[in-house]
């Protein structure tokens, strides 16, 4: 009996989710450290890392929402469209209402748009049993179309209260660096990063410790079994889309705060980056496996790759695309090799 217990060794003790999380973190660290060692330059400064955070805060938030939907066995490709719609709507509200809009109200608008998309899409997926891909594809087209209806041309927001919020920086002590002229520059992050980190923490806790969070995993693992275990599968699927929609709303506002403008072409392809980040972070498209911390590292990896490629003198967009494509394949290959090795060692 004891022999049976020991079968599989390390693999037996670690769950798929944690195994994939470890792989992601290790690969990210190897990549970032080798960038510091071999490329040097900007990578030696902590601010490079904070810049990645500043730029990718919206993606971190939306990718977290995406991970929850994917863990539940679904997908949401409307994210980019919703983000664009949120920025445009808020921009128009802030600048084009007589007397200028209120910043707090603009936040409520962002949340409302995100929630609305989440609720409608979730309802169609969970209760009308339509494929999530199709539902959210429709959502994507709808959101992009609505963005153009709200305002056709891109424009920068001039609202002073908003500009003030946008330019707020939080300095990080002791992480600053000196420029070539010897000037000290303090390291800083934007407000969006704080929001993103808060969301990562909250969603991590939700997934780990709440009944709802565990239900996402159960439904993604095997919806039929989850039903038999007494889980309300439809409601769980519905809520996964609602959370994802809400994250698209929040992520949309953080994106808006970062770029400070509204444009129909904003956040093009963001849903694909969110999917890529989730997958790099160890979330499986088949559902039931994934981790929010992994998704955070997925976004960081994705963004680091982009920075490394451009630092290496391959600044053109196609090189970034080709490298990300290659890395994504590599990540998945490593994942499947490890999973395969795990299955093998358990069988033996």
């Amino acid at each position: 009996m004891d022999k049976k217990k020991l079968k599989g060794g390390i693999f037996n003790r670690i769950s798929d989710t944690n195994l994939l999380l470890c792989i992601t973190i290790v690969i990210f660290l190897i990549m970032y450290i080798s960038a510091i060692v071999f490329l040097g330059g900007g990578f030696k400064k902590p601010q490079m890392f904070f810049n990645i955070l500043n730029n990718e805060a919206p993606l971190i938030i939306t990718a977290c929402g995406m991970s929850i939907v994917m863990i539940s066995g679904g997908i949401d490709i409307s994210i980019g469209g919703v983000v664009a719609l949120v920025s445009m709507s808020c921009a128009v509200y802030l600048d084009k209402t007589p007397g200028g809009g209120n910043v707090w109200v603009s936040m409520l608008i962002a949340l409302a748009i995100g929630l609305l998309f989440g609720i409608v899409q979730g309802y169609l997926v969970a209760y009308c049993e339509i494929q999530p891909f199709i539902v959210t594809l429709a959502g994507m087209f709808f959101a992009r179309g609505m963005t153009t209806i709200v305002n056709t041309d891109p424009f920068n927001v001039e609202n002073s209260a908003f500009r003030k919020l946008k330019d707020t920086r939080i300095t990080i002590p002791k992480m600053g660096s000196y420029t070539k002229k010897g000037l000290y520059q303090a390291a800083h992050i934007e407000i969006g990063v704080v929001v993103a980190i808060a969301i990562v923490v909250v969603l991590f806790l939700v997934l780990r410790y709440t009944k709802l969070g565990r239900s996402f995993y159960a439904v993604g693992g095997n919806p039929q079994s989850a039903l038999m275990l007494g889980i309300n599968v439809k409601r769980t699927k519905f809520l996964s889309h609602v959370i994802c929609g809400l994250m698209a709303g929040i992520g949309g506002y953080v994106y808006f705060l970062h770029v400070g403008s509204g444009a129909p072409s904003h956040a093009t392809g963001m849903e694909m980056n969110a999917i890529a980040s989730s997958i790099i972070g160890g979330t499986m498209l088949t559902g039931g496996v994934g981790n929010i911390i992994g998704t955070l590292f997925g976004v960081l990896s994705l963004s680091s790759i982009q920075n490394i490629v451009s630092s290496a003198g391959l600044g053109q967009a196609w090189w970034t695309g080709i490298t990300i494509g290659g890395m994504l394949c590599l990540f998945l290959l490593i994942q499947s090799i490890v999973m395969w090795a795990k299955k093998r060692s358990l069988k033996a």
Partner: protein
Amino acid sequence: MDEYRLLEMRGIEKTFPGVRALQNVDFSLNAGEIHALMGENGAGKSTLIKVLTGVYSKDAGTIRLDGKEVKIHSPQDAQNAGISTVYQEITLCPNLSVAENMFIGRGNGKITNWKEMNDRAKTLLERLDIPAKATQQLANCSIAVQQMVAIARAIDMECKVLILDEPTSSLDEQEVEKLFGLMRDLKAMGVGIIFVTHFLDQVYEVCDKITVLRDGQLVGEYEIRDLPRVQLVAKMLGKEMDDLSDIKGEHEAYHSPDADMKIFEAEKLQSNAGIKPFNFHIQKGEVNGFTGLLGSGRSECVRAIFGADRVIGGKVKVKGKEVKIHKPKDAMKNGIAYLPEDRKVDGIIGDLSVRENIILALQVMKGFFKPFTKAQAYAFADEYIKKLNIKTASADTPIKSLSGGNQQKVILARWLLMHPEYLILDEPTRGIDVGTKVDIQKLVLELASGGMSITFISSETDEMLRTCSRLIVMRDRKVVGELSGDDLTQSMIMSTIAGGESDE
């Protein structure tokens, strides 16, 4: 023991498109009773259980629990009402930990307390002596352990009614004994247990009462001591002992001249589908058959012969020469053809024409890069359409527009075109009309008198008696007897299937 009526189901009706799965079924369960629910596949056992557990909603009827009428709309309702279930297929989530699988979906707390949950799971695993860790991912456990985890979950729910729907199919004998021990403990505590199984021995070992269903209807409820095995089998198959006097068909004495040659022999053949090793042989021009209840392993035997399941042991000889059969193509090369049980899944390709479906197997043997000419293909197709009297508009009609019986004939034609020396027919007459049935039976006997060896499987025993000269009887996935000559009667088949106290 008190006769407290714990559960009472009255007049349960359930209709699926095209099928009346349950017709006015009554079922009742007393506290502290182990009650077997028996019936062939399709009898409605699983449907009845799924109605009780809220997976299906009933069309009519009432369910009373503890004397009060209850409305059960979802598995959660059932759990809350005190009905817990272990299903035949494992209904746990492979991506979660063992402990989570035991506790998820239970209770009203919104927050998961991992430490408490793992501790409780650990105690439970130790108490039931299950070789698994609470924190281990379920997918890393063997199927048997997973099944035990499901049972542990059900037991821990402090249920009033425990439903065990074929929980033993993946357990070994020790584990089954352990389960029976648990069932007796729970019984002593006053839990009512509904036990569904195909294994007759197990029913007679632990159960107090038996309810038999057949074709969605209630046959009756019996005390275990009032219902000997033979009668139970008769009730399940729907044949009263009185009508079992043998019905010798008109086509009986077909024998080929060189009948002594063994076309196929198998020694200790075993596949990964869970059958016990078996010996088997068939002579030239012989028609024999595997019989037994559904799930007794008769299809698995012929699948092992044909290499359709992975063969994991045993020797196989064709015409006295030892050969290796690993996959269906090996069998086909050795002149063996197999008509599978479920033609919709394994047999026809619905959108292809009758002609294409007929030449498919021969084409596979010839190789896909050497296609037949159109003229050849039409010649083959027309020959067999005429020979088997297949009713189709033309050879180009898609096979899915044909009736079931004619589809079956097309598949038969496919294999006959290969001129096999040994033909295996697994349930060739299921779901087809009586006229075509007789056609196929006649054809089988005709082919045999022409020197072909045929193994025939059918759920209808009188059909087997009409066609086969030797029957291999199976129970619980092993061969338990062989009947030929004067022993070929309904009553002999039934008593062999039931197995007596004399048998092991």
